[in-house]
């Protein structure tokens, strides 16, 4: 599920050539409903569309392990056990209890982000900038907003604005980065 504009996601989807559904959520409704604040996040959802496991950071492999500090295989093993045998991870109750709940400010920020994205698509840049700025003020540690809105603001999500945010986020103790296989406390 790409939390992205369709044009931005399409080249990555084509390159992946996946055999499973590759979906795009430009409105971030899945993120808003599930409380996703960063990528890559994984959510387990059962046959009745009930959330079995709330969002956890789940890299596909260990390419960026130095940054993620996560052993990707731990989540993979847990996922296989759930799919094949219905076995849930031992710490799931604690994980559910500790799952981040979006605050009023977080939810307000997401409404501003959604409106900003709508206005950006419509080419109404001045109003879009107002809304995106409001979102960024309210949700200072939310990657889907702080990094995710950089392209809409004409800024490089891999450039200085991102690294400035990254330093703020690390100084704050990497909030919202809970993961199975984490090699240090999140």
């Amino acid at each position: 599920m790409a939390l992205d504009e369709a044009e931005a996601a399409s080249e990555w989807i084509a390159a992946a050539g996946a055999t499973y559904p590759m979906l795009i959520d430009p409105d971030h409704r899945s993120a808003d409903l599930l409380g996703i604040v960063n990528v890559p996040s994984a959510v387990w959802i059962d046959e009745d569309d009930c959330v079995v496991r709330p969002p956890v950071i789940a890299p596909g492999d260990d390419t960026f392990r130095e940054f993620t500090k996560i052993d990707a295989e731990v989540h993979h093993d847990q996922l296989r056990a759930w799919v094949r045998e219905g076995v849930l991870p031992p710490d799931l109750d604690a994980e559910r209890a500790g799952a981040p709940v979006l605050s009023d400010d977080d939810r307000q920020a997401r409404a501003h982000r959604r409106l900003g994205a709508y206005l950006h698509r419509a080419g109404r840049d001045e109003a879009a900038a107002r809304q995106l700025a409001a979102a960024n003020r309210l949700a200072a540690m939310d990657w889907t907003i702080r990094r995710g809105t950089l392209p809409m603001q004409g800024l490089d999500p891999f450039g200085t604005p991102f690294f400035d945010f990254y330093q703020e986020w690390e100084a704050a103790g990497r909030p919202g980065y809970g993961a199975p296989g984490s090699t240090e406390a999140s």
Partner: protein
Amino acid sequence: MTTQIDAVVIDTAEVTVPAEVDDGRLLVGPDALRRATGWELKPEGLCRGEVCVPVRDRDRLTVGGRVDLAAFAEALHRPLALEAAEGVAVLGEPSAAVGGDPAGRLADLDLLDDAGQPFRWSALGRKKKLLVAWASW
């Protein structure tokens, strides 16, 4: 000064309705409110289906028979992002929606498929699903 416009109200979908811009407020008639959000103003309060939410200050909710979208959002404890002059508003998710409906189910989302065409979450059917959120940024 009041200006008549066609406004876009974005809730679970984007719906265009007639509206008035009045002193920074976006006002919509009862029919427009129902079409855009599914909610209706009744004697018992704001109602959608069998669910009704009492409205403490009805005078604040309505202006000349039209509903102030900001007061509407506040009554339902939902965030509102508004550009009144642009004629567009987003109603964000209520806190109770986090994690799905009261039965714990994820809402049926309107998404796009890999070709940019509309795709509904429910089309995935009854199976275990792994949702992996990723992004180009």
